[in-house]
């Protein structure tokens, strides 16, 4: 019916977007498992927050502090170009996450007691002045008080950070716990920026990934919408597949919740990341990729190059000729890629919403012709009519929203065979009674 097929086409397209963005996210995670760009961005964020762009003083002390040192494997070697935001910056074993409690504790500790003297003299030699200056206080074991913190701040070299900690202390009115919370809030605000950098670089990477995938697998949004619009069977199959995926996701979520309540998992941010975990992460990403890829293949959609490329261009102008002739649906690919940058969670959410709308709009297409009792009951037929009116109204709203898709597909296209009319079968060979096929129906059982 009217409303149902617009929604179903939308569901089909959204589902394809979901699958493609899942593939892209999986590949992105696979890349991330090796490059650990998050860690690199975190390092840059810390440097910026601590006003130490070259990692000479406070940022270095921060990373070498025992509370942070335990979060990563190996020594801290600051990289020279960490201040540039590059899409594939290497994390070099640094932690991808630092809990805000750790940050606040380290900052208070560094301010009140100065840097931790290294047992290794060679490392200490890198910054002899600072170590020497802080040596007497490093031995102090008396608990940190607001007063000792103030004294420590006064002696800090990094004036900007000193002011930040001082204002946190002032706002807390010398309450150390509140100071810690203030510092945590400061850190969280800084980390929002870091995740912003990561999101932006991921969006770019995913866009190019998705464009490549759309091109290689020929995932043409416009073509798919068109195909779904014309093909009832395929549309129903895709909708059923989308329903099954949502159902599975719901079950998985319930399972995870159940598991989580039984065995509390270790906070993922704190633990040092061992080699096996990198392998696990990349294996999980590979797994997700394989599943999504399989899903894409099983969908009965015009995806892939099964029909080949038909265009007559030659030589170096072949590509542009193909685009001109519409054999390479470039626009459709770009649409797919742009959609994929919005991410799998976004499309999952939208799919959920559209599914809910569809379940309320579902038309009465399968009503039985001989169900006369319902129809002759005036109350019921009235409610039925009202529901149909409501359904149509909702569907019209949806239609307006899904304008892009419908505009592309509802045009009356005539095709080469549209003019063939074989309506009169003619006096060709007559079919005898004994050649007629067997039948069924019309007899009471």
């Amino acid at each position: 019916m009217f409303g149902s097929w617009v929604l179903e086409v939308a569901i089909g397209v959204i589902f394809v977007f979901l699958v493609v963005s899942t593939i892209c996210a999986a590949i992105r995670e696979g890349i991330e498992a090796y490059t650990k760009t998050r860690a690199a961005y975190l390092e840059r964020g810390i440097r910026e927050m601590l006003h130490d762009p070259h990692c000479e003083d406070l940022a270095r002390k921060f990373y070498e502090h025992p509370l942070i040192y335990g979060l990563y494997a190996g020594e801290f070697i600051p990289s020279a170009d960490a201040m540039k935001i590059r899409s594939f910056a290497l994390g070099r074993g640094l932690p991808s996450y630092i809990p805000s409690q750790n940050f606040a504790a380290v900052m208070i500790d560094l301010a009140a007691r100065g840097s931790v003297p290294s047992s290794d003299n060679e490392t200490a030699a890198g910054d002899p002045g600072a170590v020497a200056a802080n040596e007497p206080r490093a031995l102090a074991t008396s608990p940190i008080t607001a007063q000792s913190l103030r004294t420590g701040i006064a002696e800090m070299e990094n004036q900007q950070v000193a002011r930040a900690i001082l204002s946190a202390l002032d706002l807390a009115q010398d309450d150390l716990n509140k100071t810690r919370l203030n510092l945590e809030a400061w850190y969280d605000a800084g980390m929002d920026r870091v995740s912003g950098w990561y999101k932006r670089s991921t969006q770019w990477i995913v866009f190019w990934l998705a464009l490549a995938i759309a091109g290689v697998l020929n995932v043409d949004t416009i073509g798919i919408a068109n195909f779904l619009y014309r093909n009832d069977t395929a549309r129903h199959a895709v909708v059923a597949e989308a329903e099954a995926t949502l159902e599975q996701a719901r079950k998985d979520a319930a399972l995870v919740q159940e598991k989580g309540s039984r065995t509390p998992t270790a906070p993922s941010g704190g633990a040092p990341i061992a080699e096996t975990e990198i392998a696990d992460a990349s294996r999980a990403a590979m797994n997700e990729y394989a599943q999504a890829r399989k899903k894409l293949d099983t969908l009965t959609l015009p995806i892939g190059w099964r029909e080949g490329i038909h265009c007559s261009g030659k030589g170096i102008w072949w590509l542009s000729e193909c685009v001109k002739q519409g054999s390479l649906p470039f626009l459709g690919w770009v649409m797919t890629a742009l959609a994929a940058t919005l991410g799998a969670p976004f499309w999952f959410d939208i799919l959920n919403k559209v599914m809910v709308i569809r379940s309320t709009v579902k038309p009465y297409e399968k009503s039985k012709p001989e169900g006369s009792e319902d129809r002759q009951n005036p109350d019921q037929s009235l409610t039925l009519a009202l529901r149909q009116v409501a359904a149509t109204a909702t569907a019209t709203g949806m239609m307006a929203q899904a304008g892009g898709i419908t505009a592309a597909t509802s045009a009356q296209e005539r095709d080469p065979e549209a003019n063939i009319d074989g309506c009169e079968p003619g006096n060709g060979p007559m079919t005898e009674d004994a050649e007629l096929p067997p039948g069924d129906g019309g007899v009471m059982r």
Partner: protein
Amino acid sequence: MRYSLIWLPNALKEAGLHVRLVDNWETRGRGDVGRIEGVICHHTAVASTKPMPTLGSLINGRKAEPGLSAVAGPLAQLGLGREGHFYVIAAGRCNHAGEGRWQGFTNGNANFIGIEAENDGKGEPWPPVQIEAYWRGVAAILMHEGLDASRCAGHKEYAPTRKPHDPNLDMNAFRINVAKVMNGSAPLPERIPPFDPPPEAGAPAGRATLFRGNTGELVFRLQSVLAIGTDGIFGSITEAAVREFQRQHGLTGDGIVGPFTWQALDTLL
């Protein structure tokens, strides 16, 4: 590949109609259909007394003959025989409409389901059982697709210049009857009872209704009465003989041995 109109037989059967499936109907078609926007009604314009003489042409296409060019089949998704049975020919697209326009739709072959009903188109009366099946069949299709009766067109309305007389029916009255079936104000379809009615109240029910595919003692008796080979299997030959017998005795030649046919057969015993 199976085409989209695989729902046709069930929709028709649920409407109380007798449906006959032509072999490989699921995969037959000139490619797949587009979105279904309605039904176009035709007549076959072939004079005959047989129930569905044009079935072969509707499946395989039309041979060239004077005044008509050759056209590749299938020529319609559904055939409607004189006995009121629907023959499901193709689940895909068919060459039935050609150029024309109805309710703004101009690609009739892609967007309309074609029904070819057996009638010579020159005044042959439409048997009530056939015309009633026509209304019910069209109504069942429109209801399945969520369309109203206005989406049912005669070929003469879709292509008035080329096919001014196809089908030989008053389409406005036809649509009113289709609408009656759709809104439930038409009487329920009469189905053939499974047994002879008992001769008097309290007596056990009589002979079972026989149709193609049945076997057994009763089929033996039927075959011996019709004086054809007796093997106890109700196959295509027995069915053809039953149809012939029914036509000779003024009954609907549907090949189903129900109470009326048993009554007529009794006169031969």
